[in-house]
Every structure is written in structure tokens, then in C-alpha cells.
């Protein structure tokens, strides 16, 4: 989850205990989000790379495919995060 996504929340104006509560909430959402990302990365790469069920173990090709898929997905996801952050930034400064 991109940090910039949460920048809208104006934490500084809150009293101390609310700030703490808000921070905990953000932490919890980030934990949930990374676990979901992990789950959906596994599902995507499994679906794209594994299609034969004649054996129990991953074949060498499937293993390679999953590794590349995961790497590509992560690079993609970082790039999207960067672009998304820039657009968010632009929208924020227009306000």
C-alpha cells in the first residue's frame, strides 16, 4: 500500500490519543493489505503459470514462470504506486 494514499488524513490536527488510534488503524489496514496482495499475487501467478496436473511437484518451467511472474508483478506494482502517487499529489495541490 502506498503511503501517499493516506496523506489525505490530516493527522496533525488531532489530539494525541486520536492520533495514536488513527496510526493503529493505518497499521492494521497496511497489514491486511500486504497479506491480500500476497494472496492475490500467488493466485495470479499460479493461474498464469500452472496448468498441468499430472504430477504433484512443480515442474522446472512452472517454477521459473512463477518467479518471473512474481518479480514482474512487484515491479509493476511499484511503478503503478509511483504514478498513482504523482497523480494524487497533483490532485492534492490543486485543492
Amino acid at each position, binding site marked *: 500500500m502506498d503511503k501517499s494514499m493516506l496523506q489525505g*488524513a490530516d493527522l496533525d490536527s488531532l489530539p494525541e490519543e*486520536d492520533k495514536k488510534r*488513527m496510526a493503529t488503524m493505518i497499521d492494521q489496514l497496511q497489514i491486511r*493489505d500486504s497479506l491480500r496482495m500476497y494472496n*492475490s499475487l500467488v493466485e495470479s501467478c499460479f493461474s498464469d503459470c500452472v496448468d498441468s496436473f499430472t504430477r504433484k511437484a512443480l515442474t522446472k518451467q512452472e517454477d521459473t514462470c512463477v518467479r*518471473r511472474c512474481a518479480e514482474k508483478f512487484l515491479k*509493476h506494482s511499484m511503478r*503503478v504506486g509511483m504514478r*498513482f502517487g504523482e497523480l494524487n499529489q497533483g490532485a492534492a495541490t490543486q485543492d
Partner: protein
Amino acid sequence: MAANNVPVGLDKEQIFGMAEKEMEYRVELFNKLTHTCFNKCVEKKYKESELNMGENSCIDRCVSKYWQVTNLVGQLLGAGRPPM
């Protein structure tokens, strides 16, 4: 949700609830965008683990267009609130 947009008369539980929903929304938007653009732009034969130049520029344009669609639909829903 910026503090100055919070309607008066809400108690603290409601404000925290709204902030939480807003963040969930942003995360979900980001995730949907990520998956959609991955499917539209990234070659699925996985011959290498790098994104090539074509994929990279497709991703940039895809994010830009997704953003525009988000804004356009936001206007159509006319909620008076910014979609982000």
C-alpha cells in the same frame, strides 16, 4: 478525508469509521487499478522478469487513463465529493 470536510454533528466513532472506509476505498482503488493494468499491459508468457519499454509506457498510460475514468465517473455520480 481531510478534517475540514467532516460534517458537523458527527461523534468520534463516526468520524473514525468514515476515515477507515475512505482508506479502505483508496486501497481497493489502488488494487483494482494495479490488477487491471497488469492484465492490460504485461505480457503473460513471462519470458523474462523485467518489464520491457513497451510494458512500462503502457503501464504509465493505463494508470493515467484509469485516473481519468475515476474522475469522470465521480462527476457522473455527482456526489459533490472528489473521487480521491
